[in-house]
């Protein structure tokens, strides 16, 4: 551990630092988000910044990238006190940033996006061949050979994330801020990213690495700083700490551990899907889910797991096969139909598909269940607010109250409200995609607990996730899909992360479809 006793060696080090935060405070209104943060970045170092959502990591990055200005303390760059006014000012100071939320312009080409606003030009006229050449050279570091003239829209998410990273690298920054850079990457791509990061640090570039993935952090980081509730808890050499230690510092002592799985008797079959096929996406998908059951759906990118779910809830059309809800044949023409039949669907993209970011918590909560709170055609605000207050309590949402604008909450807390919004409707079947994507350990625990409580109360739940350990600990059964085909339908207690990965990658033979052996996985 490093403590701030300013010996001469320390002072020397401080002078050499790429930047230093000393006693930095940041308040939004009366809400103190950062409370006296000390943090520094040395040349050639990868310094991980970890903490639960809402701990202040994003705000820290925001301060360094000129999105916010500190309300107290000082920020030094190469030993000079600076005030970073805007992202363009940060770039001038040699600070580049990769955001968790993609910041690309979809319709424009890959090359233009990489050099957004900084395209090589002569007399203001863009030099297109040079632009493409430079973009290709940068992408080559990732062994990625794509046509840099194609629009970013046409790329898969993981490639877009690489483009985003390349964009930050292209700025020739001495400081690189990475906010969850691997959230959409495959293990191979993560490996390639780490290789590039090591090359950059060898050149003396310093990197601040924000992530929830402990394994990644312990692979790549030189030092780890833990934030909790706006305060810095510790800064440690990676070699001198452990994952358990860091996690317990993040959540303040108690380790939540694994959620207890309830193996109660299952109820009736709620949803039964037989031979569902769609020429373009998936083939002969059959499974069922019963009341009280959590069915995990495991699949990698391109497994078409979302397409299958979207077809079930009326968002995608043009498939053959049969869908039975409570034993009756159905086929929903729209999500509204599906909702009225008692199905809830929580989409993957929280910000674009799930929430009204500029609206209050209580309005977001009530958006899918207005009829419940309406009397004589009027929405009863008090009933909505009290529902919101109980959701805040149940999920331990970190907020100032139902009136707060949801966009101001951290990702994990937004996710909780989004889930609560659908639970409000008390659907017979809840389909939820990536329930804990980009969510910290604490929020993950609460979300899992709530889902299991609802299942115990008799709700049928389908959880689609690429977080396989999550599926193993949360589900009763797991359906594995690969390129639109069911590869297996196994009891979660028999599944391991490895066996799921093998199947999801299409490496092991398809198991017998579940409807030939109904509920067998559940027999004692």
């Amino acid at each position, binding site marked *: 551990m490093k403590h701030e006793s300013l010996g001469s060696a320390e002072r020397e080090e401080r002078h050499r630092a790429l930047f230093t935060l000393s006693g930095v405070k940041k308040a939004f209104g009366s809400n103190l988000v950062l409370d006296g943060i000390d943090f520094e970045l040395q040349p050639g170092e990868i310094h991980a910044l970890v903490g639960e959502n809402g701990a202040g990591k994003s705000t820290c990055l925001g301060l360094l990238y000129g999105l916010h200005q500190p309300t107290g303390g000082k920020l030094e760059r190469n030993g000079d006190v600076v005030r970073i006014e805007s992202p363009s000012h940060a770039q001038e100071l040699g600070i580049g940033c990769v955001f968790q939320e993609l910041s690309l312009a979809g319709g424009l080409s890959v090359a233009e996006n990489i050099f*957004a*606003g900084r395209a090589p030009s002569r007399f203001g*006229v*863009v030099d297109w061949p040079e632009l493409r050449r430079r973009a290709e050279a940068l992408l080559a570091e990732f062994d990625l050979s*794509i046509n840099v003239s194609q629009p970013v829209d046409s790329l898969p998410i993981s490639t877009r994330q690489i483009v985003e990273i390349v964009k930050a690298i292209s700025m020739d920054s001495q400081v690189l801020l990475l906010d969850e850079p691997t959230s959409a990457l495959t293990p*191979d791509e993560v490996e390639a990213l780490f290789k590039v990061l090591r090359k950059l640090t060898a050149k003396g570039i310093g990197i601040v690495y924000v992530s929830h993935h402990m394994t990644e952090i312990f692979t790549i980081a030189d030092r780890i700083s833990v934030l909790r509730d706006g305060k810095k808890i510790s800064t440690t050499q990676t070699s001198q700490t452990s994952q358990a230690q860091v996690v317990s510092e993040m959540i303040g002592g108690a380790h939540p551990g694994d959620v207890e799985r309830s193996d109660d008797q299952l109820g009736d079959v709620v949803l039964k899907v037989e031979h569902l096929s769609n020429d373009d996406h998936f083939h002969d998908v059959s499974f069922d889910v019963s009341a009280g059951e959590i069915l995990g759906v495991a699949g990698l990118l391109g497994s078409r797991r979302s397409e299958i779910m979207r077809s079930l809830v009326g968002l995608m059309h043009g498939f053959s096969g049969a869908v039975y809800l409570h034993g009756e044949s159905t086929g929903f023409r729209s999500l509204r139909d599906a909702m009225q039949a008692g199905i809830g669907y929580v989409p993957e993209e929280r910000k674009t598909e799930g929430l009204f970011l500029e609206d209050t918590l209580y309005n977001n909560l009530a958006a899918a269940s207005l009829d419940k709170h309406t009397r004589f055609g009027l929405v009863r605000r008090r009933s909505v607010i009290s529902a919101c207050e109980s959701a805040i309590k149940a999920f331990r949402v970190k907020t100032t109250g139902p009136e707060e604008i949801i966009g101001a909450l951290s990702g994990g807390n937004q996710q909780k409200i989004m889930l609560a919004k659908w639970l409000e409707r008390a659907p017979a079947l809840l389909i939820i995609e990536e329930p804990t994507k980009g969510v910290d350990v604490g929020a993950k625990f609460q979300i899992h607990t709530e889902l299991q409580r609802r299942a115990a109360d008799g709700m049928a739940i389908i959880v689609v996730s690429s977080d396989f350990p999550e599926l193993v600990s949360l589900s009763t059964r797991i359906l594995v899909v690969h390129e639109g085909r069911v590869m297996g339908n196994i009891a979660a207690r028999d599944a391991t992360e490895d066996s799921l990965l093998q199947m999801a990658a299409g490496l092991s033979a398809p198991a017998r479809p579940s409807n030939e052996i109904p509920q067998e996985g559940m027999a004692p």
Partner: protein
Amino acid sequence: MSMAIDSDKAVSKNPMQRILKAFIDIRELTLLFMIAVIIIVMANLNPYFLSVSNFRALSVGMAPTAIIVIGMAILLASGGFDLSVGSVMALSSTVVAMMMLAGYSIPISVACSLVLGAAVGFSNGMLITGLGINPLIATLGTMSIARGIALVLTEGFSLSSLPKEFGWIGKASLGGFPVLVLLTLSLILIFDLAVRHTRFFRQVYFIGANEKAAMLSGIHVGRVRIIAYVLTGVLAALAGVLLASRLMSGTPTAGNGIELQVLAAAVIGGASLRGGEGTILGAFLGVVFVALINNSMTMLAVSIYWQMIVIGAVLVSAVALDMLIRGRRG
């Protein structure tokens, strides 16, 4: 690890399909084709259609719209738009006339009305980026104010008996082509190239496609937006001056409703109210297309009321068709 994204599935298709795809993808080609169809059909229906005098009337008539559509297309690409262009056009045409009647020289009068256009554009830009007022509301307000000022200044009357030399640009020809038309075409060409190839105007597309991303990329979003509104104001004022020169009068009621025609033409030409799309050439071809349809219907003695119905139907079907094609392509 090596990945090759199948960047262009068209490569595997045969040449015929590729040409067809490019045709649908590139709005300019689709429009050129439809313009050609109209010309061929009309040439057979009415021999007068192909005459020099018809084309001259047509091209001179659409010059103001074509100049204004440049600004509108840039604004649409940036995710904004401007309803005040018609009023600015009227205001500048009356101001240039009043100043000349008051004895100021032609260059001074013209310069002042262009500065006035820039000032209205600047106010639009400040209202929208500085105060965060929705572009629809902000420019609806300035539209009413600018028109009101033009009417107050002239008490509603047109101002005529302008100096003879002022009519030169509006009337003169160069090698058989009206100067007005040559000027318009050069502006279209210059701005089309600028928007495609200069660093400044490329920023406009980033802002339109994803404003937050543009800001995080270090683009001065507010500054670029304001410049786009100022440019639109200046172009609208220029259109007003040229109109005054051609008609030899300043008209406070000029350009009434032109803002919606310009918007429609730009959208037909491939721009989108969502921003991030469209080119100057496309928007210009949209203007030509609409003007040709109007002209054809006049030649075929279709009533003016029916023309409005047809233009509305063309606008909606152009956008609907585009969405259907794109939707299917996924």
